[in-house]
Protein backbone atom coordinates (compact mmCIF):
# COMPACT_ATOMS: atom_id res chain seq x y z
CA UNK A 1 0.00 0.00 0.00
CA UNK A 2 2.63 2.46 1.03
CA UNK A 3 4.95 1.44 -1.79
CA UNK A 4 2.18 2.00 -4.27
CA UNK A 5 1.51 5.42 -2.90
CA UNK A 6 5.15 6.31 -3.28
CA UNK A 7 5.26 5.12 -6.84
CA UNK A 8 2.25 7.11 -7.82
CA UNK A 9 3.74 10.28 -6.38
CA UNK A 10 7.24 9.73 -7.72
CA UNK A 11 7.32 7.86 -11.02
CA UNK A 12 11.12 8.10 -10.91
CA UNK A 13 11.30 5.68 -7.99
CA UNK A 14 9.65 2.94 -10.06
CA UNK A 15 12.99 1.35 -10.95
CA UNK A 16 14.19 1.24 -7.39
CA UNK A 17 11.04 -0.36 -6.05
CA UNK A 18 10.87 -3.19 -8.57
CA UNK A 19 12.03 -6.65 -7.49
CA UNK A 20 15.63 -7.41 -8.40
CA UNK A 21 15.02 -10.33 -10.75
CA UNK A 22 15.69 -9.60 -14.42
CA UNK A 23 18.49 -7.28 -13.47
CA UNK A 24 20.79 -8.60 -16.21
CA UNK A 25 18.20 -8.06 -18.90
CA UNK A 26 17.74 -4.54 -17.70
CA UNK A 27 21.46 -3.91 -17.95
CA UNK A 28 21.52 -5.14 -21.52
CA UNK A 29 18.57 -2.94 -22.32
CA UNK A 30 20.32 0.05 -20.79
CA UNK A 31 23.49 -0.59 -22.79
CA UNK A 32 21.45 -0.92 -25.97
CA UNK A 33 19.61 2.29 -25.22
CA UNK A 34 22.88 4.01 -24.39
CA UNK A 35 24.49 2.96 -27.65
CA UNK A 36 21.57 3.99 -29.79
CA UNK A 37 21.38 7.26 -27.89
CA UNK A 38 25.08 7.80 -28.48
CA UNK A 39 24.65 7.03 -32.15
CA UNK A 40 21.79 9.51 -32.48
CA UNK A 41 23.77 12.15 -30.64
CA UNK A 42 26.82 11.76 -32.85
CA UNK A 43 25.12 10.86 -36.13
CA UNK A 44 25.39 14.42 -37.38
CA UNK A 45 29.08 14.48 -36.56
CA UNK A 46 29.68 11.18 -38.37
CA UNK A 47 27.91 12.56 -41.42
CA UNK A 48 30.02 15.70 -41.41
CA UNK A 49 33.22 13.69 -41.09
CA UNK A 50 32.11 11.50 -43.99
CA UNK A 51 31.39 14.55 -46.14
CA UNK A 52 34.72 16.01 -45.06
CA UNK A 53 36.39 12.87 -46.42
CA UNK A 54 34.35 12.60 -49.61
CA UNK A 55 34.22 16.21 -50.84
CA UNK A 56 37.99 16.84 -51.15
CA UNK A 57 38.63 13.29 -52.46
CA UNK A 58 36.21 13.74 -55.36
CA UNK A 59 37.30 17.30 -56.00
CA UNK A 60 34.13 19.11 -54.91
CA UNK A 61 36.39 21.19 -52.69
CA UNK A 62 40.01 22.08 -53.35
CA UNK A 63 41.97 19.51 -51.27
CA UNK A 64 44.55 22.18 -50.58
CA UNK A 65 41.99 24.31 -48.74
CA UNK A 66 40.33 21.36 -47.05
CA UNK A 67 42.40 18.19 -46.95
CA UNK A 68 40.37 14.98 -46.46
CA UNK A 69 39.65 14.08 -42.87
CA UNK A 70 41.88 10.98 -42.93
CA UNK A 71 44.84 13.11 -43.94
CA UNK A 72 44.11 15.62 -41.17
CA UNK A 73 43.81 12.76 -38.71
CA UNK A 74 47.06 11.12 -39.86
CA UNK A 75 49.09 14.34 -39.78
CA UNK A 76 47.71 15.20 -36.35
CA UNK A 77 48.73 11.77 -35.07
CA UNK A 78 52.25 12.46 -36.34
CA UNK A 79 52.21 15.69 -34.34
CA UNK A 80 51.17 13.73 -31.26
CA UNK A 81 53.96 11.20 -31.86
CA UNK A 82 56.76 13.69 -32.32
CA UNK A 83 55.67 15.53 -29.19
CA UNK A 84 55.44 18.77 -31.14
CA UNK A 85 51.80 19.03 -30.22
CA UNK A 86 52.28 18.55 -26.49
CA UNK A 87 54.90 21.28 -26.39
CA UNK A 88 52.19 23.74 -27.35
CA UNK A 89 49.46 22.03 -25.40
CA UNK A 90 51.38 22.15 -22.12
CA UNK A 91 52.13 25.82 -22.47
CA UNK A 92 48.47 26.59 -23.21
CA UNK A 93 47.29 24.50 -20.27
CA UNK A 94 49.57 26.34 -17.88
CA UNK A 95 48.37 29.72 -19.16
CA UNK A 96 44.70 28.85 -19.00
CA UNK A 97 44.93 27.21 -15.58
CA UNK A 98 46.70 30.20 -14.06
CA UNK A 99 44.32 32.66 -15.70
CA UNK A 100 41.10 30.75 -15.13
CA UNK A 101 41.71 29.51 -11.59
CA UNK A 102 43.31 32.82 -10.66
CA UNK A 103 40.16 34.51 -11.92
CA UNK A 104 37.95 32.19 -9.86
CA UNK A 105 40.02 32.84 -6.74
CA UNK A 106 39.39 36.56 -7.13
CA UNK A 107 35.84 36.51 -8.42
CA UNK A 108 34.07 34.06 -6.11
CA UNK A 109 35.16 35.54 -2.73
CA UNK A 110 34.72 39.09 -4.04
CA UNK A 111 31.31 38.20 -5.44
CA UNK A 112 30.17 36.74 -2.13
CA UNK A 113 31.36 39.87 -0.36
CA UNK A 114 29.64 42.17 -2.84
CA UNK A 115 26.42 40.18 -2.80
CA UNK A 116 26.38 40.30 0.98
CA UNK A 117 27.12 44.02 1.35
CA UNK A 118 24.49 45.33 -0.99
CA UNK A 119 25.33 49.01 -0.61
CA UNK A 120 28.93 48.32 -1.64
CA UNK A 121 27.64 46.41 -4.63
CA UNK A 122 25.42 49.35 -5.59
CA UNK A 123 28.42 51.65 -5.81
CA UNK A 124 30.66 49.22 -7.66
CA UNK A 125 28.03 47.79 -10.00
CA UNK A 126 28.38 50.39 -12.82
CA UNK A 127 32.11 49.68 -12.94
CA UNK A 128 31.55 45.93 -13.06
CA UNK A 129 28.99 46.31 -15.83
CA UNK A 130 31.34 48.53 -17.84
CA UNK A 131 34.18 46.05 -17.46
CA UNK A 132 32.07 43.08 -18.38
CA UNK A 133 30.57 44.68 -21.44
CA UNK A 134 33.82 46.00 -22.89
CA UNK A 135 35.13 43.46 -25.37
CA UNK A 136 38.02 41.68 -23.71
CA UNK A 137 40.27 41.51 -26.74
CA UNK A 138 40.11 45.25 -27.40
CA UNK A 139 41.88 45.58 -24.06
CA UNK A 140 44.65 43.20 -25.04
CA UNK A 141 46.90 45.95 -26.43
CA UNK A 142 46.67 47.69 -23.07
CA UNK A 143 47.60 44.49 -21.27
CA UNK A 144 50.59 44.02 -23.58
CA UNK A 145 51.56 47.62 -22.95
CA UNK A 146 51.37 47.14 -19.20
CA UNK A 147 52.72 43.62 -18.83
CA UNK A 148 54.84 43.13 -21.91
CA UNK A 149 54.45 40.43 -24.50
CA UNK A 150 55.26 37.52 -22.16
CA UNK A 151 53.21 35.25 -20.00
CA UNK A 152 51.96 37.91 -17.62
CA UNK A 153 49.91 39.67 -20.27
CA UNK A 154 48.34 36.41 -21.45
CA UNK A 155 47.51 35.12 -18.01
CA UNK A 156 46.09 38.43 -16.89
CA UNK A 157 43.89 38.84 -19.97
CA UNK A 158 42.49 35.32 -19.40
CA UNK A 159 41.88 36.27 -15.78
CA UNK A 160 40.12 39.40 -16.92
CA UNK A 161 37.90 37.39 -19.22
CA UNK A 162 37.00 35.00 -16.41
CA UNK A 163 36.55 37.39 -13.51
CA UNK A 164 33.58 39.49 -14.58
CA UNK A 165 31.16 36.81 -15.62
CA UNK A 166 31.93 34.73 -12.52
CA UNK A 167 31.72 37.81 -10.32
CA UNK A 168 28.33 38.87 -11.66
CA UNK A 169 26.90 35.38 -11.35
CA UNK A 170 28.20 35.03 -7.82
CA UNK A 171 26.76 38.40 -6.81
CA UNK A 172 23.36 37.61 -8.26
CA UNK A 173 23.44 34.15 -6.68
CA UNK A 174 24.16 35.55 -3.23
CA UNK A 175 21.76 38.46 -3.62
CA UNK A 176 18.87 36.33 -4.81
CA UNK A 177 18.92 33.73 -2.08
CA UNK A 178 15.34 33.04 -1.09
CA UNK A 179 14.82 35.44 1.86
CA UNK A 180 12.61 32.93 3.62
CA UNK A 181 15.61 30.58 3.91
CA UNK A 182 17.59 33.32 5.61
CA UNK A 183 14.66 34.15 7.84
CA UNK A 184 14.26 30.52 8.75
CA UNK A 185 17.94 30.09 9.63
CA UNK A 186 17.95 33.34 11.59
CA UNK A 187 14.88 32.29 13.54
CA UNK A 188 16.99 29.40 14.80
CA UNK A 189 19.50 31.88 16.12
CA UNK A 190 22.05 31.48 13.32
CA UNK A 191 24.69 34.18 13.13
CA UNK A 192 26.15 35.89 10.06
CA UNK A 193 29.22 33.77 9.42
CA UNK A 194 27.60 30.37 9.69
CA UNK A 195 24.60 31.74 7.81
CA UNK A 196 26.95 32.61 4.97
CA UNK A 197 28.64 29.23 4.99
CA UNK A 198 25.62 27.03 5.56
CA UNK A 199 22.76 28.85 3.85
CA UNK A 200 23.89 31.59 1.47
CA UNK A 201 26.74 29.69 -0.17
CA UNK A 202 24.87 26.47 -0.89
CA UNK A 203 21.87 28.41 -2.11
CA UNK A 204 24.06 30.47 -4.45
CA UNK A 205 25.98 27.46 -5.80
CA UNK A 206 23.90 26.89 -8.96
CA UNK A 207 24.36 30.48 -10.02
CA UNK A 208 28.09 30.44 -9.21
CA UNK A 209 28.62 27.26 -11.22
CA UNK A 210 26.85 28.77 -14.20
CA UNK A 211 29.29 31.66 -13.98
CA UNK A 212 32.20 29.23 -13.81
CA UNK A 213 31.03 27.45 -16.95
CA UNK A 214 30.64 30.68 -18.86
CA UNK A 215 34.03 31.80 -17.56
CA UNK A 216 35.65 28.58 -18.75
CA UNK A 217 34.27 29.00 -22.26
CA UNK A 218 35.47 32.62 -22.25
CA UNK A 219 38.92 31.72 -21.07
CA UNK A 220 39.50 29.17 -23.85
CA UNK A 221 38.44 31.74 -26.41
CA UNK A 222 40.72 34.39 -24.99
CA UNK A 223 43.62 31.97 -24.61
CA UNK A 224 43.58 31.12 -28.29
CA UNK A 225 43.17 34.71 -29.40
CA UNK A 226 45.98 35.88 -27.14
CA UNK A 227 48.26 33.16 -28.46
CA UNK A 228 47.51 34.11 -32.02
CA UNK A 229 48.54 37.71 -31.37
CA UNK A 230 52.16 37.96 -30.40
CA UNK A 231 53.27 34.60 -29.13
CA UNK A 232 55.77 31.92 -30.04
CA UNK A 233 54.15 28.87 -28.47
CA UNK A 234 50.75 27.50 -27.48
CA UNK A 235 47.83 25.99 -29.36
CA UNK A 236 46.64 29.28 -30.80
CA UNK A 237 50.16 30.03 -32.05
CA UNK A 238 50.44 26.49 -33.42
CA UNK A 239 47.33 26.87 -35.57
CA UNK A 240 48.54 30.17 -36.98
CA UNK A 241 52.03 28.81 -37.49
CA UNK A 242 50.88 25.82 -39.59
CA UNK A 243 48.57 28.01 -41.58
CA UNK A 244 51.44 30.35 -42.42
CA UNK A 245 53.57 27.38 -43.46
CA UNK A 246 50.78 25.89 -45.58
CA UNK A 247 50.62 22.82 -43.33
CA UNK A 248 46.86 22.94 -43.70
CA UNK A 249 46.13 19.43 -42.42
CA UNK A 250 47.97 20.14 -39.17
CA UNK A 251 46.12 23.44 -38.86
CA UNK A 252 42.78 21.65 -39.08
CA UNK A 253 44.06 19.13 -36.55
CA UNK A 254 44.62 21.95 -34.09
CA UNK A 255 41.19 23.43 -34.74
CA UNK A 256 39.41 20.11 -34.25
CA UNK A 257 41.40 19.40 -31.11
CA UNK A 258 40.34 22.73 -29.62
CA UNK A 259 36.71 22.05 -30.43
CA UNK A 260 36.92 18.67 -28.70
CA UNK A 261 38.68 20.26 -25.74
CA UNK A 262 35.94 22.87 -25.44
CA UNK A 263 33.25 20.19 -25.40
CA UNK A 264 35.21 18.11 -22.88
CA UNK A 265 35.70 21.03 -20.50
CA UNK A 266 32.04 21.91 -20.69
CA UNK A 267 30.98 18.30 -20.07
CA UNK A 268 33.34 18.10 -17.11
CA UNK A 269 31.96 21.28 -15.61
CA UNK A 270 28.45 20.07 -16.23
CA UNK A 271 29.22 16.95 -14.25
CA UNK A 272 30.57 19.10 -11.46
CA UNK A 273 27.46 21.23 -11.60
CA UNK A 274 25.21 18.20 -11.44
CA UNK A 275 27.16 16.83 -8.53
CA UNK A 276 27.04 20.03 -6.54
CA UNK A 277 23.46 20.89 -7.34
CA UNK A 278 21.84 17.47 -7.50
CA UNK A 279 19.15 18.86 -5.20
CA UNK A 280 18.16 21.41 -7.81
CA UNK A 281 14.98 20.46 -9.59
CA UNK A 282 15.95 22.05 -12.89
CA UNK A 283 19.16 20.10 -13.31
CA UNK A 284 18.60 18.74 -16.81
CA UNK A 285 21.52 17.05 -18.46
CA UNK A 286 22.81 18.18 -21.85
CA UNK A 287 25.91 16.79 -23.52
CA UNK A 288 27.81 13.59 -22.97
Amino acid sequence: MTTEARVSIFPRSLEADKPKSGLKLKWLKWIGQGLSGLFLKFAIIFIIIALWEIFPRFGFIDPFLLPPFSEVFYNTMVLFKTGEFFKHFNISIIRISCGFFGGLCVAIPLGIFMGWFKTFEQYVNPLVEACRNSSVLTLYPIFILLFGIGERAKISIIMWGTVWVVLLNTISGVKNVDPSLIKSARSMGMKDLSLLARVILPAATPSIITGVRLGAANSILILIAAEMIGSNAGLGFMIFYYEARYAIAEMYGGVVFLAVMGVAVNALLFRLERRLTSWHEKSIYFGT
Partner: protein
Amino acid sequence: MDPRTDSAIGAARPTTKIEVRDIQKVYRVKRENGGGYGEFIVLKDVNLDVYAGEFLTLVGPSGCGKSTMLDLLAGLIPNSGGEIRIDGRTITGPAMDRGFVMQAYALFPWLTVQSNVEFGLTIKKVPKAKRKAISAHYLEMVGLTQFANRYPHELSGGMKQRVAIARALAFDPEVLLMDEPFAALDAQTRETLQDELLELWEKTGKTIVFVTHSIDEAVYLADRIAVMGTNPGRISEIVNIKLSRPRKGSRGSAEFGWIRHKIWQYLQPEEAAKEDFPPIGATDVAAVIDSQAAL
Protein backbone atom coordinates in the same frame (compact mmCIF):
# COMPACT_ATOMS: atom_id res chain seq x y z
CA MET B 1 -21.91 38.90 26.66
CA ASP B 2 -22.05 35.30 25.76
CA PRO B 3 -20.49 32.94 28.27
CA ARG B 4 -18.95 30.89 25.49
CA THR B 5 -16.82 33.65 24.06
CA ASP B 6 -16.25 36.70 26.13
CA SER B 7 -15.87 35.36 29.63
CA ALA B 8 -12.72 35.88 31.63
CA ILE B 9 -10.26 33.07 32.06
CA GLY B 10 -11.59 30.50 34.51
CA ALA B 11 -10.67 29.99 38.11
CA ALA B 12 -7.52 27.92 37.43
CA ARG B 13 -5.53 30.78 36.02
CA PRO B 14 -2.81 29.45 33.71
CA THR B 15 0.77 30.63 33.90
CA THR B 16 1.84 33.29 31.45
CA LYS B 17 4.44 32.20 28.92
CA ILE B 18 4.79 35.28 26.76
CA GLU B 19 4.11 38.80 27.93
CA VAL B 20 3.81 41.48 25.29
CA ARG B 21 3.92 44.92 26.88
CA ASP B 22 3.17 48.18 25.04
CA ILE B 23 4.84 46.97 21.88
CA GLN B 24 5.25 49.53 19.15
CA LYS B 25 6.59 49.05 15.67
CA VAL B 26 7.23 52.08 13.54
CA TYR B 27 8.78 52.10 10.08
CA ARG B 28 10.46 55.15 8.65
CA VAL B 29 9.12 55.77 5.18
CA LYS B 30 10.18 58.32 2.60
CA ARG B 31 7.66 61.09 2.14
CA GLU B 32 6.18 61.18 -1.33
CA ASN B 33 6.41 64.91 -1.95
CA GLY B 34 9.30 66.81 -0.51
CA GLY B 35 12.23 65.42 1.41
CA GLY B 36 12.49 63.90 4.82
CA TYR B 37 10.98 60.84 6.37
CA GLY B 38 7.57 60.11 7.70
CA GLU B 39 6.57 57.50 10.20
CA PHE B 40 4.34 54.58 9.50
CA ILE B 41 2.95 53.00 12.63
CA VAL B 42 2.56 49.27 12.09
CA LEU B 43 1.76 48.33 15.66
CA LYS B 44 0.65 50.61 18.45
CA ASP B 45 0.55 49.74 22.14
CA VAL B 46 0.03 46.05 21.75
CA ASN B 47 -0.46 44.18 24.99
CA LEU B 48 -0.95 40.46 25.05
CA ASP B 49 -0.45 37.55 27.38
CA VAL B 50 0.07 34.11 25.95
CA TYR B 51 -0.44 31.34 28.45
CA ALA B 52 1.78 28.30 28.74
CA GLY B 53 0.57 25.46 26.56
CA GLU B 54 -2.24 27.38 24.93
CA PHE B 55 -3.08 27.64 21.25
CA LEU B 56 -3.50 31.30 20.39
CA THR B 57 -4.37 32.49 16.91
CA LEU B 58 -3.94 35.99 15.59
CA VAL B 59 -6.46 37.00 12.96
CA GLY B 60 -6.85 40.31 11.25
CA PRO B 61 -7.26 42.02 7.92
CA SER B 62 -4.18 42.32 5.75
CA GLY B 63 -1.96 45.16 6.85
CA CYS B 64 -2.89 44.89 10.52
CA GLY B 65 0.64 43.84 11.40
CA LYS B 66 -0.06 40.28 12.47
CA SER B 67 2.99 38.93 10.67
CA THR B 68 5.04 41.80 12.06
CA MET B 69 3.81 40.84 15.52
CA LEU B 70 5.04 37.30 14.95
CA ASP B 71 8.43 38.49 13.66
CA LEU B 72 8.73 40.57 16.83
CA LEU B 73 7.92 37.53 18.95
CA ALA B 74 10.55 35.57 17.05
CA GLY B 75 13.03 38.38 17.67
CA LEU B 76 13.69 38.67 13.94
CA ILE B 77 13.08 42.43 13.88
CA PRO B 78 13.70 45.03 16.56
CA ASN B 79 10.72 46.75 18.17
CA SER B 80 10.33 50.51 18.42
CA GLY B 81 9.10 50.50 21.99
CA GLY B 82 7.81 48.26 24.74
CA GLU B 83 9.09 44.81 25.48
CA ILE B 84 8.38 41.15 25.03
CA ARG B 85 9.16 38.72 27.82
CA ILE B 86 9.25 34.97 27.65
CA ASP B 87 9.18 33.31 31.07
CA GLY B 88 9.91 36.73 32.51
CA ARG B 89 13.06 37.29 30.45
CA THR B 90 13.06 40.08 27.89
CA ILE B 91 13.89 38.80 24.43
CA THR B 92 16.73 40.44 22.54
CA GLY B 93 16.78 38.40 19.35
CA PRO B 94 15.99 35.04 17.85
CA ALA B 95 16.73 32.04 20.03
CA MET B 96 15.96 28.38 20.13
CA ASP B 97 13.30 28.68 22.78
CA ARG B 98 11.04 29.63 19.87
CA GLY B 99 10.46 27.70 16.66
CA PHE B 100 9.26 29.49 13.53
CA VAL B 101 7.17 28.04 10.72
CA MET B 102 6.43 30.02 7.59
CA GLN B 103 3.94 29.87 4.77
CA ALA B 104 6.75 29.43 2.24
CA TYR B 105 8.03 26.26 4.02
CA ALA B 106 11.60 27.59 3.69
CA LEU B 107 13.15 24.15 3.59
CA PHE B 108 16.79 24.09 2.55
CA PRO B 109 16.56 22.55 -0.92
CA TRP B 110 20.12 21.17 -0.89
CA LEU B 111 19.47 19.14 2.24
CA THR B 112 17.51 15.92 2.52
CA VAL B 113 14.35 15.86 4.58
CA GLN B 114 16.28 14.35 7.47
CA SER B 115 19.06 16.93 7.31
CA ASN B 116 16.47 19.68 7.18
CA VAL B 117 14.89 18.39 10.37
CA GLU B 118 18.34 18.18 11.96
CA PHE B 119 19.31 21.69 10.91
CA GLY B 120 18.53 23.36 14.22
CA LEU B 121 20.20 20.52 16.09
CA THR B 122 23.46 21.10 14.22
CA ILE B 123 23.33 24.73 15.32
CA LYS B 124 22.91 23.44 18.85
CA LYS B 125 25.89 21.12 18.19
CA VAL B 126 23.98 17.99 19.13
CA PRO B 127 26.11 14.90 18.34
CA LYS B 128 25.27 12.99 15.18
CA ALA B 129 23.79 9.83 16.68
CA LYS B 130 21.48 11.84 18.91
CA ARG B 131 20.47 14.06 16.01
CA LYS B 132 19.51 11.03 14.01
CA ALA B 133 17.37 9.65 16.80
CA ILE B 134 15.60 12.98 17.27
CA SER B 135 14.94 13.54 13.57
CA ALA B 136 13.64 9.97 13.23
CA HIS B 137 11.29 10.61 16.14
CA TYR B 138 9.83 13.80 14.69
CA LEU B 139 9.66 12.44 11.15
CA GLU B 140 7.65 9.56 12.50
CA MET B 141 5.43 12.02 14.31
CA VAL B 142 4.59 13.82 11.07
CA GLY B 143 4.36 10.54 9.15
CA LEU B 144 7.31 11.09 6.82
CA THR B 145 9.74 8.39 7.97
CA GLN B 146 9.83 6.94 4.47
CA PHE B 147 10.84 10.25 2.98
CA ALA B 148 13.86 10.90 5.20
CA ASN B 149 16.30 10.72 2.31
CA ARG B 150 14.27 12.68 -0.21
CA TYR B 151 14.93 16.23 -1.23
CA PRO B 152 12.31 18.93 -0.68
CA HIS B 153 11.53 19.35 -4.39
CA GLU B 154 10.33 15.75 -4.44
CA LEU B 155 7.62 16.49 -1.87
CA SER B 156 4.12 17.93 -2.14
CA GLY B 157 3.23 21.18 -0.40
CA GLY B 158 1.59 19.43 2.53
CA MET B 159 4.61 17.19 3.03
CA LYS B 160 6.98 20.15 2.88
CA GLN B 161 5.02 21.90 5.60
CA ARG B 162 5.11 18.73 7.72
CA VAL B 163 8.88 18.71 7.36
CA ALA B 164 9.03 22.39 8.31
CA ILE B 165 6.97 21.67 11.42
CA ALA B 166 9.18 18.71 12.31
CA ARG B 167 12.23 20.93 11.84
CA ALA B 168 10.81 23.55 14.18
CA LEU B 169 9.89 20.95 16.78
CA ALA B 170 13.17 19.04 16.57
CA PHE B 171 15.25 21.47 18.59
CA ASP B 172 12.54 21.38 21.23
CA PRO B 173 11.45 25.00 21.55
CA GLU B 174 8.83 25.86 24.12
CA VAL B 175 6.94 28.16 21.81
CA LEU B 176 5.96 27.51 18.23
CA LEU B 177 5.35 30.60 16.10
CA MET B 178 3.45 29.90 12.90
CA ASP B 179 2.96 32.51 10.19
CA GLU B 180 0.04 31.46 7.97
CA PRO B 181 1.59 28.01 7.61
CA PHE B 182 -1.30 26.43 5.74
CA ALA B 183 -2.29 29.37 3.53
CA ALA B 184 -0.59 27.99 0.41
CA LEU B 185 -2.21 24.56 0.69
CA ASP B 186 -5.38 23.32 -0.93
CA ALA B 187 -8.47 23.18 1.29
CA GLN B 188 -8.39 19.43 1.93
CA THR B 189 -4.70 19.26 2.74
CA ARG B 190 -5.13 22.28 4.97
CA GLU B 191 -7.82 20.59 7.04
CA THR B 192 -5.73 17.45 7.35
CA LEU B 193 -2.75 19.45 8.52
CA GLN B 194 -4.89 21.38 11.00
CA ASP B 195 -5.92 18.11 12.61
CA GLU B 196 -2.34 16.85 12.58
CA LEU B 197 -1.12 20.07 14.15
CA LEU B 198 -3.68 19.81 16.93
CA GLU B 199 -2.55 16.26 17.55
CA LEU B 200 1.09 17.35 17.69
CA TRP B 201 0.18 20.18 20.00
CA GLU B 202 -1.60 17.83 22.37
CA LYS B 203 1.32 15.39 22.29
CA THR B 204 4.08 17.96 22.79
CA GLY B 205 2.32 20.53 24.95
CA LYS B 206 3.94 23.45 23.12
CA THR B 207 2.63 26.98 23.35
CA ILE B 208 1.53 27.93 19.85
CA VAL B 209 0.99 31.39 18.40
CA PHE B 210 -0.59 30.96 15.01
CA VAL B 211 -1.21 33.75 12.51
CA THR B 212 -3.92 33.25 9.92
CA HIS B 213 -6.32 35.26 7.82
CA SER B 214 -8.83 32.43 7.78
CA ILE B 215 -11.48 32.87 10.45
CA ASP B 216 -12.50 29.26 10.03
CA GLU B 217 -8.96 28.08 10.69
CA ALA B 218 -8.60 30.39 13.68
CA VAL B 219 -11.80 29.14 15.31
CA TYR B 220 -11.05 25.51 14.60
CA LEU B 221 -7.58 25.59 16.14
CA ALA B 222 -7.59 28.14 18.90
CA ASP B 223 -8.06 28.28 22.63
CA ARG B 224 -8.13 32.01 22.22
CA ILE B 225 -8.29 34.29 19.22
CA ALA B 226 -6.67 37.70 19.26
CA VAL B 227 -8.52 39.80 16.70
CA MET B 228 -6.42 42.58 15.27
CA GLY B 229 -7.46 45.87 13.72
CA THR B 230 -5.71 48.15 11.29
CA ASN B 231 -4.49 51.70 11.21
CA PRO B 232 -2.64 51.53 13.45
CA GLY B 233 -2.27 47.78 13.96
CA ARG B 234 -3.56 46.77 17.37
CA ILE B 235 -5.33 43.99 19.17
CA SER B 236 -8.98 44.95 19.20
CA GLU B 237 -10.53 41.88 20.80
CA ILE B 238 -9.54 38.70 22.54
CA VAL B 239 -12.02 35.86 22.26
CA ASN B 240 -12.01 32.62 24.24
CA ILE B 241 -13.05 29.61 22.19
CA LYS B 242 -14.58 27.04 24.45
CA LEU B 243 -15.55 24.51 21.84
CA SER B 244 -14.78 21.07 23.21
CA ARG B 245 -11.87 19.15 21.80
CA PRO B 246 -11.28 17.16 19.68
CA ARG B 247 -13.01 19.39 17.20
CA LYS B 248 -12.97 17.07 14.25
CA GLY B 249 -16.31 17.41 12.52
CA SER B 250 -17.34 20.41 14.59
CA ARG B 251 -17.15 22.80 11.65
CA GLY B 252 -20.77 22.17 10.78
CA SER B 253 -22.07 22.77 14.30
CA ALA B 254 -24.21 25.75 15.24
CA GLU B 255 -21.74 26.92 17.87
CA PHE B 256 -18.92 26.89 15.37
CA GLY B 257 -20.92 28.92 12.89
CA TRP B 258 -21.94 31.34 15.58
CA ILE B 259 -18.39 31.94 16.75
CA ARG B 260 -17.17 32.26 13.19
CA HIS B 261 -19.81 34.90 12.57
CA LYS B 262 -18.90 36.72 15.76
CA ILE B 263 -15.24 36.86 14.80
CA TRP B 264 -16.20 37.96 11.33
CA GLN B 265 -18.18 40.78 12.87
CA TYR B 266 -15.20 41.87 14.94
CA LEU B 267 -13.18 42.03 11.77
CA GLN B 268 -15.57 44.44 10.05
CA PRO B 269 -14.67 48.13 10.08
CA GLU B 270 -16.43 49.62 13.10
CA GLU B 271 -18.94 51.80 11.25
CA ALA B 272 -19.91 49.07 8.84
CA ALA B 273 -20.43 46.61 11.65
CA LYS B 274 -22.91 48.93 13.33
CA GLU B 275 -24.88 49.95 10.26
CA ASP B 276 -24.94 47.03 7.87
CA PHE B 277 -24.49 44.08 10.12
CA PRO B 278 -26.65 44.42 13.23
CA PRO B 279 -25.64 41.90 15.87
CA ILE B 280 -27.52 38.68 15.49
CA GLY B 281 -28.80 36.96 18.56
CA ALA B 282 -27.87 33.35 19.16
CA THR B 283 -31.45 32.18 18.70
CA ASP B 284 -31.75 33.86 15.29
CA VAL B 285 -28.64 32.13 14.09
CA ALA B 286 -29.88 28.82 15.36
CA ALA B 287 -33.10 29.30 13.43
CA VAL B 288 -31.23 30.00 10.21
CA ILE B 289 -29.02 26.99 10.68
CA ASP B 290 -32.03 24.79 11.40
CA SER B 291 -33.77 25.80 8.24
CA GLN B 292 -30.66 25.25 6.17
CA ALA B 293 -30.07 21.88 7.73
CA ALA B 294 -33.62 20.92 6.82
CA LEU B 295 -32.80 21.47 3.18
